[in-house]
């Protein structure tokens, strides 16, 4: 299968290892990965902040980059950005009166998958240890991000993939379905409420005794990890793609340059 990677802006710029891990996993399964060079961002920050006019060229750019027959499916290691591509792009085009863009956005949206969706529903991965050789001998807890959970209905796809990694010890996160408080510009506009939500998330994570909190959205992990780091916690955050990419021979290193969003280095 020819798979187009939508890296997402935050992973491209801040967490390139997550996109590289996604490439690794897909190539390990024998698929060809392409990276449409024109891509930049899904535009969610603009839309969710009410800047529809400014969002339009961002959405148009994404649609232009991905509206080709050059690939079978597109994938992004993010529930939130995929939800934006699937649920917001048509709305932005409609609101700005661009019917042609609306139609093309629908086509791109239908071909775009979140990583655990693609792995589980399309590529038939149910056992990461056996099918991907994934190995990660650490105690890990998992935060299901809101947009993956409620807009894409990913259910336990990410968690099940993680639980099937060799050597991993998963511990349940109390109140896992509660938002971490990121919310894009909410974290700045309503910084106090956002911080209060993050503090409760951090306390729940630390209470599990896990070494790491995994998840499927770099933005939420940046938020949670940033809070843990500020508290001086030893617990870090790591995208599930990096855990799936980790093998016995080539274990993911949890120290180094841009690695965990939080924790001691």
């Amino acid at each position: 299968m020819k798979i187009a990677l939508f890296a997402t802006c935050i992973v491209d710029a801040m967490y390139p290892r997550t996109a590289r891990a996604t490439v690794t996993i897909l190539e390990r399964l024998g698929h060809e990965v392409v990276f449409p060079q024109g891509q930049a961002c899904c535009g969610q920050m603009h839309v969710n902040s009410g800047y529809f006019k400014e969002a339009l060229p961002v959405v148009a750019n994404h649609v232009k980059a991905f509206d080709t027959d050059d690939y079978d499916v597109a994938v992004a290691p993010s529930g939130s950005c995929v939800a934006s591509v699937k649920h917001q792009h048509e709305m932005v085009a409609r609101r700005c009166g661009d019917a042609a863009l609306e139609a093309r956005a629908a086509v791109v949206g239908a071909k775009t998958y979140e990583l655990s969706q693609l792995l589980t529903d399309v590529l038939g991965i149910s056992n990461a240890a056996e099918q991907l050789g994934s190995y990660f001998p650490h105690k890990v807890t998992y935060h299901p991000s809101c947009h993956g959970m409620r807009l894409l209905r990913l259910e336990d796809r990410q968690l099940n993939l993680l639980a099937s990694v060799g050597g991993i010890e998963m511990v349940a996160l109390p109140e896992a379905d509660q938002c971490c408080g990121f919310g894009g510009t909410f974290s700045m506009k309503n910084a106090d409420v956002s911080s209060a939500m993050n503090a409760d998330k951090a306390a729940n994570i630390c209470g599990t005794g896990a070494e790491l909190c995994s998840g499927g959205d770099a933005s939420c992990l940046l938020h949670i990890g940033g809070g843990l780091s500020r508290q001086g916690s030893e617990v870090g955050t790591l995208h599930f793609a990096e855990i799936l990419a980790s093998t016995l021979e080539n274990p993911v290193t949890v120290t180094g340059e841009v690695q965990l969003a939080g924790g001691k280095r």
Partner: protein
Amino acid sequence: MSNTFLGMPTLPVFGHGNLNATEPFPKAARRELANTQLRANLGHATHTIRDKRLKVVAELPDWEELRNAGSAIKNATMANLPALLEQFEANFTARGGIIHWARDAQEANEIVTDLIRATGETEVVKVKSMATQEIGLNEYLEEQGIAAFETDLAELIVQLDHDKPSHILVPAIHKNRSQIREIFLREMADVDPALTDDPARLAEAARKHLRKKFLSAKVAVSGANFGLADTGTLTVVESEGNGRMCLTLPETLITVMGIEKLLPSWTDLEVFMQLLPRSSTGERMNPYTSLWTGVTPGDGPQNVHLVMLDNGRTAALADEMGRTALNCIRCSACMNVCPVYERTGGHAYGSTYPGPIGAILSPLMTGIKSEENNSLPYASSLCGACYDACPVKINIPEILVHLRGEDVDSKRSKTKAPTQMDLMMKGAQWAFSSGSHLNLLEKGLPLGKLVAGRNKVIKKLPGLAAGWTQSRDIPAPPSQSFRQWWATEHQAPAGVEHPEGDQA
């Protein structure tokens, strides 16, 4: 333009009364967050109701179908509202009721006052009602020399404490039982001084206090949960039975109801009687459901009035993206599951309608430019828990985003200096609307490493971003972006790279 009154108001007619945030939400939220007792009371109460709701909802195999039905019935009602209102009026009037139409809060308050004055009474008993909170009826009546006594236990607590409700269903959710005991001891003239904070004793004290009022009141004021167009019937759904007393004992009954409360027919009530109690109190069925159709000679109130309230509802109806907010049946499920409401409480929202539904309903009814209501649509992380909990499937996150757009557009101006947020969005538009722009920007990533320094974290940023760094670090950025790695180092698919194999 002529100044001559042509009999038609300027459209849209926005709502007035207690529908406004009077200070920006972030400022109010900061104050409420600092109240640790409030946080503890709210956290406990919302989690308890949340768990109860989940349990009783899970019992119904057709819950999703019920939600779809509730949504469809309400959408059909709104699409056909003028005809349904006329149908309701005809049926209600035919059975001896008298209808009054109020364009806004002021008109509604004046109508109710005149109706009470006509009875010669100076005291009224009240059934818990959001519509009368919205129009500030109690305060208005007090100015006119009429005393209104709340008979719902939680409303009584709030009224005795000279406070404001902080939740539409549990108005005193921000108080715990020892605080309630203190209020009763301080404000109830006839209370037993040995009163404890045992809930049963507190309820007993309230019951004794209210009983005299029920037996002596000649006028009652209520709201309504539903108005059934095909029969002209009004409905009040409650838990305590105080509503039933108010609706049956006095001679005069005055109901204030928003025009959106209609259902086309009696048979539609079946859907909502399953949706509402489960969503609101987490009960399979509410203890008391009162229905009345006009006047029954010789039984119950003989003077039955209904004030039909617009107060910004038609303005909300005119908003194509926002009008489903009118489908709200005031169950409060959205606020009980909201992580923002849970931490700030209802007072932070200013309006009678707090929480997620309030953050859309208030600005829809008043217009986005009213007082500080443009800060309300931002009072959400867009986590979506409210949409999942809503029994009539109001897509609250989508309407929040729509209203943020209304706010941004309302401030666009060629003459005013752009805000920090405007500049950030403009810059991001440039960066994110082209792969080569983003690539160019990402070449500056090593600069971020310099800012981060030896500890490899950024701990303090200026301006808007200071909101982030007040409680969160930012890791040092990488030496190269993914796209730079892809262009320079990623080989053909045969040579599978390991992601952490190298760090530039």
